[in-house]
């Protein structure tokens, strides 16, 4: 079906880009029209930030690398950005399943629009949304005392790495959403992989404090790699485990994102084509 779609003169690249824009806009509009969605999506990470900083900060503060400038908050913020990215990506699954269950996808599929536009538009609008939440987290973090130890460029680069990672995770969530199909099931299905991945990582505490079997997993999984990349960019090389370089960690994180995309984007697209038949 798609081969003929692509070769047909109507369905050019410009056409696909326009359709993707129409869908992206439509999805973003939902955040504007139902601001409570965005508010809840932001309240939760901000609450995490405050709780972890004030509740655990004192206890954990002593075991973090010196590069954090002696403040748990400086260590925590880069980690929380990735936690936010991971949780936020879950919205991709929720949005898709909602459209599926309301028959909107069925309508889209009957229109002479680019087939890729629904998933591209969904992941793009979630990227914009994630960018917004990440920026807001950064601002709240700054207000309560977060200070980057490198340069402003390092800070922005860190945020970009976080967004690339969030975008890749969106495609994982798209596949999960298309697999479970209904919004209620998607609610729990997205948290299932995200929770252990987030907590068994360097988001909240250095992995060296974990039992060795867990640390072995935590050290090498993509969330830790990406959190470390952010810490390297925002706090400097000394924030990384001994022997790791900032550039190496950033590249490794980007490689993870690329790998996740390479596997899950085609998978999600294939599932989308079958989702409604």
């Amino acid at each position, binding site marked *: 079906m798609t081969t*003929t779609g692509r070769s*047909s003169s109507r369905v050019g690249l410009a056409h696909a880009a326009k359709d993707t824009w129409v869908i992206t806009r439509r999805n973003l509009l939902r955040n504007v029209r139902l601001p409570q969605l965005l508010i809840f999506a932001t309240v939760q990470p901000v609450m995490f930030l405050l709780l972890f900083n004030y509740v655990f900060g004192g206890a954990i503060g002593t075991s973090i690398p010196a590069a954090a400038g002696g403040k748990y908050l400086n260590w925590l913020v880069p980690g929380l950005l990735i936690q936010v990215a991971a949780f936020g990506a879950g919205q991709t699954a929720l949005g898709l399943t909602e459209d599926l269950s309301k028959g909107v996808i069925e309508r889209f599929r009957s*229109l002479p629009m680019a087939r890729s536009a629904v998933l591209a538009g969904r992941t793009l609008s979630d990227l914009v949304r994630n960018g917004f939440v990440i920026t807001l987290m950064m601002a709240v973090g700054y207000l309560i005392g977060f200070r980057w130890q490198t340069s402003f460029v390092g800070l922005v680069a860190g945020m970009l790495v976080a967004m690339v990672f969030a975008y890749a995770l969106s495609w994982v969530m798209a596949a999960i959403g298309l697999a479970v199909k209904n919004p209620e099931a998607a609610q729990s299905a997205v948290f299932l992989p995200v929770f252990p991945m987030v907590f068994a990582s360097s988001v909240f505490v250095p992995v060296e404090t974990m039992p060795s079997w867990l640390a072995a997993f935590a050290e090498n999984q993509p969330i830790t790699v990406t959190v470390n990349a952010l810490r390297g960019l925002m706090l400097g090389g000394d924030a990384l485990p001994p022997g790791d370089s900032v550039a190496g960690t950033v590249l490794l994180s980007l490689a993870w994102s690329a790998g996740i995309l390479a596997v899950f984007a085609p998978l999600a697209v294939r599932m989308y084509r079958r989702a409604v038949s």
Partner: protein
Amino acid sequence: MNPIVRAVDVVKTFGEVKALDGVTLEFEPGIIYGLLGPNGAGKTTLIRVLTTLLKPDSGEAWVAGVDAVHHAAEARTHLGLAGQFAAVDDYQTGRENVVMVARLYDLGAREAARRADEVLEAIHLTDAADRPVRTYSGGMRRRLDLAASMVGRPEVLFLDEPTTGIDPRSRIDIWDLIRDLVAGGTTILLTTQYLDEADQLAARIGVIDQGRLIGEGTPEELKDRLGGAFLEMAIDEADRPRGMEILGALEGEEPVFEPATKRISVPAQRGSGTLVQAVRRLDEAGVTFEDVTLRKPTLDDVFLSLTGRAAEEETAAAGADGGGRRRGRRSR
């Protein structure tokens, strides 16, 4: 003239269920074709095959001269679909919903806005056009969904039960709108569970049951098969056999007893003439009866005449649930 919609021996199974069991139909441009059938007959499945949403296991589907199975993308440029359940965004306004669909039909921004105004006007939603859809009633949502399906000026419009769950007045509004569209050159395939709707609108009717087309013709042809009206009444159990015998003798047509409603019905070719005669004869025989009515043929009667058995689902349950499983057969 070449057919604008053509299905050839279409088969589609879902696991054990044969949703379409070799459907062949075709019709010419510029008409309304009514697909009539009870719950689970395969109406939605056939529409989904013709609108490229579903690949059939075998068979051909052609829309506006395009092979909808192998050239789906091109076929989609010729068709519009309003599915069985309104697919509109709650948080967008009515106008935004329609403009979005217009844009996805590849209209430019200005043209999309103009066309959206046009169809919203036609469907009497102009006043509510700038309200979020979440404030719309069920009927308004349905109309908006119709507006969206026609905004791209498709040559062929597929409407899956366009009036199910709509109040009688809006129903007539929608009928008018559908007639206007056809007058403007659009070809329409609509499904319905109501004989009177197909009768009102369609130039041709196909009757579908258990994935097969079991009858086809103009409304007149179908009704001719049925004769005019039906006589219905309730008779006490004790008198029932005698009553059935008398009713059967009226015009030589076998009466049918419906256990669920405890009512008996029999064709009444001569309308009130038959009624008067029935009442007189039952009275003379001392049979107690009550609640006598003369009614128009229903989908059930069409089925009875085409298949010799009743439709498998109450048409009254229409719209209660979409693709529900089949209930047991009604006994006669």
